[in-house]
């Protein structure tokens, strides 16, 4: 049963991981961060990741309508660019929260499918009661 830091360090062990953060997507606050961040500033990366997560979670086109309150309306978001991937995994909790696990992967070494599966497992273990 890991805490926030252990969870992020585990994410960093994925092949090609460049940086990871746990972000509150209602406020844009980084609750924890390790490794590098795209702009060199974890705080502003967290704010921007939160904007993206909020858009996906609150727009009818992307959120699943019948999701129970304990489940986030979106599972994950994937962004690919020329040299890297970003995976944002929503963390479902029984209590009130709004957090995503944000992983930044180098495109050449990273394995997107593996990262997606592992992040889902980590998000589940983080809040295992």
């Amino acid at each position, binding site marked *: *049963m*890991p*805490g*926030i830091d*252990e*969870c992020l360090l585990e994410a960093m062990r994925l092949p090609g991981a460049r940086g990871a953060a746990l972000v*509150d997507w*209602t*406020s*844009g*606050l980084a*609750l924890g961060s390790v490794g590098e961040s795209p702009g060199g500033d974890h705080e502003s990366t967290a*704010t921007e990741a939160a904007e993206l997560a909020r858009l996906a*979670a*609150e727009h*009818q086109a992307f*959120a699943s*309508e019948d*999701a129970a*309150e*304990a489940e986030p*309306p979106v599972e994950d978001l994937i962004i690919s660019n020329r040299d890297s991937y970003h995976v944002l995994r929503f*963390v479902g*909790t*029984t*209590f*009130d*929260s*709004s*957090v995503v696990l944000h992983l930044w992967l180098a495109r050449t070494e990273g394995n997107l499918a593996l990262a997606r599966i592992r992040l889902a497992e980590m998000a589940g*273990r*983080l*809040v*295992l*009661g």
Partner: protein
Amino acid sequence: MTVVRTPPPLPVRDKTAAREQSGSGVSPMLTRLAAERATGVLMRECGTLHLSEGQVVHAESPLAPGLDVLLTARGTLDPAQWWSAVQRAGDPVGAVRLLFEGGSLAPGTLELIHLGALFDAAYFALAPSSTPGRFRYGSPPAQAPLRTVPVATVERETLRRRTLLHSIWPDATSDGLPLSRAERGAAPPLTARQRAVLDRVDGSRTAPDIARELGRRTFPTLMDVRRLVAAGVVAPGARPPAALAPAEVNDPDITLLKRLRDALEAL
């Protein structure tokens, strides 16, 4: 021929120096306490901050649901289990520690709930107040297993949250007044969270009341409420607020007194 001599300019206070001295300007007293690595409890009008060696360990506010509400509202923890832990430990923070050590609370759950409650309550504790804050030096609350947060992070986050709310809808009256539904034609598409908030708008509940009933943190609820107000679905009622009354004060005497107080706190 009269020569008009311009009088020498009046001395002007160097505002940049004062601002640097008082940190981010949320609470000069808090900045000073952080600098001297103080341990104790800072009591302000809308909440309290618990400090340990200049770091924030915990925050509480009557306007933000506490650990008890967040933990038990949706079955994360059995209420009976919570209250027996509180009885044994004497206070909520001690109860959380007991439950953690007993294996009833996972580390990730504990950290997320604690940090969520801390920043939520700190937002209100650091709200502009009309009375000076008091600090009681005391023995440090045993921190482990709770994470501590630097004062600067809490201040920065509080300011950012204010800006976020302001960017949704600049009028803050809906934060503390009882809310009522506004008569309006077609409602815009709402999220499930917003619908739950709207369902509880009945002309007497305030945003913090609704947050508590839903077992949600108050700040995200304020964001939902400001969006509903901006969409014209909800309007703040006219009844004078009981708890939160950040009334606009334009009286020059009061403004001067407030500036004096801030200056004294900054010393």
